[in-house]
């Protein structure tokens, strides 16, 4: 592999990893603060992508669609927390798993009813629709750089939230404990609702910006969810920093794995997970940053 091909794969790895991080950070935040495992988290990614498709078709602009989509997904998050997830706080893991599994089925069928099962493409917004030339034959799409850039900005914002606010202090302490949150002077119901909405928005946003690159297809929620689980297992649950490191590791393993050993396809990621499980069963970073 020559230098420029390597560079392209490296940039792809980082872009994929950062996107995964966005989705996984939502999952790990919700678990870290509220102690809920949410299997339907991948569905939010899928919903985001399908929203990007429908809204950009309606409005003619992906960027407008994204703004609208984030607002809508936060509203969805607030609604879901109020209607369903608030009932899960005291329940055991099996019940949480089952309820959110049921939710996946509902989301998938609703999507099927409302938008159908077709695969759709979403156009890259005009401003980003060009490539940086690397060699005579190779170039790198600016949109992908934009994606990575956006993810980095969000990662920094998340870092600020976690390192510099009281809410963040709680996340770092790994408190999924209502009394502890209340004692910090925060309105617990509001906090939980906001955190959940934030998690949903992160996943949906990731789906929206990924749409032009990965297309919009029915199984996308499932595939991203399982990889997210691998990210969280490797990175350590409740650790946002761990999610970042793990997501980048997975981005590298998956991208280079597919290029170097095509027959192994998606298995490289699981082998990585198995290896980490042998070495550090609690993940690379324990709870908290």
């Amino acid at each position, binding site marked *: 592999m020559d230098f420029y091909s390597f560079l392209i794969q490296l940039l792809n790895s980082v872009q994929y990893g950062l996107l995964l991080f966005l989705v996984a950070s939502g999952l790990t935040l919700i678990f870290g603060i509220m102690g809920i495992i949410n299997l339907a988290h991948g569905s939010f990614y899928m919903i985001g992508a399908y929203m990007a498709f429908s809204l950009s078709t309606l409005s003619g602009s992906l960027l407008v669609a994204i703004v609208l989509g984030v607002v809508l997904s936060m509203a969805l998050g607030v609604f879901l927390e109020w209607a369903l997830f608030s009932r899960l706080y005291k329940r055991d893991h*099996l019940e949480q*798993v089952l309820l959110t599994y*049921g939710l996946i089925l*509902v989301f998938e*069928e609703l999507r099927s009813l409302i938008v159908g099962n077709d695969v759709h493409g979403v156009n890259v917004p005009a401003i980003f629709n060009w490539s940086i030339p690397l060699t005579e034959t190779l170039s790198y799409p600016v949109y992908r750089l934009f994606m990575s850039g956006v993810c980095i900005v969000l990662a920094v914002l998340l870092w600020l939230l976690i390192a510099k606010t009281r809410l963040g202090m709680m996340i770092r302490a790994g408190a999924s404990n209502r009394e502890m949150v209340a004692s910090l002077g925060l309105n617990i119901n509001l906090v939980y609702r906001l955190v959940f909405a934030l998690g949903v928005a992160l996943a949906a946003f990731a789906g929206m910006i990924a749409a032009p690159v990965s297309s919009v297809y029915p199984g996308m929620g499932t595939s991203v969810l399982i990889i997210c*689980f691998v990210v969280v297992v490797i990175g350590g649950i409740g650790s946002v920093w761990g999610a970042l490191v793990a997501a980048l590791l997975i981005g590298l393993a998956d991208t280079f794995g597919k290029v170097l050993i095509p027959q192994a396809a*998606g*298995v490289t990621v699981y082998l990585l997970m*198995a290896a980490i499980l042998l070495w550090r069963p609690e*993940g690379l970073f324990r709870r908290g940053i």
Partner: protein
Amino acid sequence: MTRRRIALAVAVLLLALFPLTGSAFYTELVTKVMILAIFALSLDLLVGYTGLVSFGHAAYYGVGAYVLGLMAPKYEAANLWLTLPVAIAVAGIAALAVGAFVVRVKGIYFIMVTLAFAQMFYFVFHDTAFGRGSDGISMNFKPTAAIGAFVPFDLANATHVYYFVFVLLALVFVFLRLLLRSTFGRALQGIRSNEHRMRSLGFPVYLYKLASFGIAGALAGLAGYLYALQFGFVNPELLSWHQSGNVLLMLILGGQGSLIGAVVGAFAFVAMEEIYSAVTTHWQLLLGATIIALVIFLPGGLASVAQRFQRKLIGGPPNE
């Protein structure tokens, strides 16, 4: 206690006599349910009695099915007595292999890694040449039960298959009953109740969990084999997480922590599936909504409904 024994005996009798109703469709349907009941029982050992919530149990179900699919020769029938033990063994070994990694972690991690490993198995069968890919494998012949010249039953005959599965279901049920009363089984239940104390008392908890995982996997492989036997066809969807989710659902439908509950759950699930898919092609929506409603309003499953009903009838708490 006697009332429950009578109810159980009646149910067993009904099941035994069922094929006499003559309906080929329903005989095959109930066979399918009994196969799923074996699958659910295998998971119940893990979830209901050892306290390990696995979201990847379909992997071993699929492995059992694929063993038959891969071993079945193209131009003649496979031998039941050869292929069945192999399927159980391979599924058990696969479970031990995964278990060695997975049993190290607890709680949420465990759920996630079991799902992830099952997905890995799914990929192997779906995307590689080993499993013949996403189209699956069709078998031209049902396995034969021949031992030399003696053929005790004919697996191409739906009624024979029904009774074969029925006997296996009964054997699995009795085996698990005995297992749970043994020292090994009680240790598992101790682990579910208070793993920390078990370790403190001197039990090597990791090994017990691993053994439970392996046995559960082997029994799931048995169920998968029977599925392949009945339908003559295997495909990667047998290892999908929908399958893993559905079998967990059967446990909650029937109420966890009871062997009969697993069987009841299997019946309830298939009944729901049949009814819903008759109503609409988007039946999974109804299924999903039902699951959500069940978890919110009926966490004890149908067993808790039965208990409340029983309490109204005879008063007082039901005994063990």
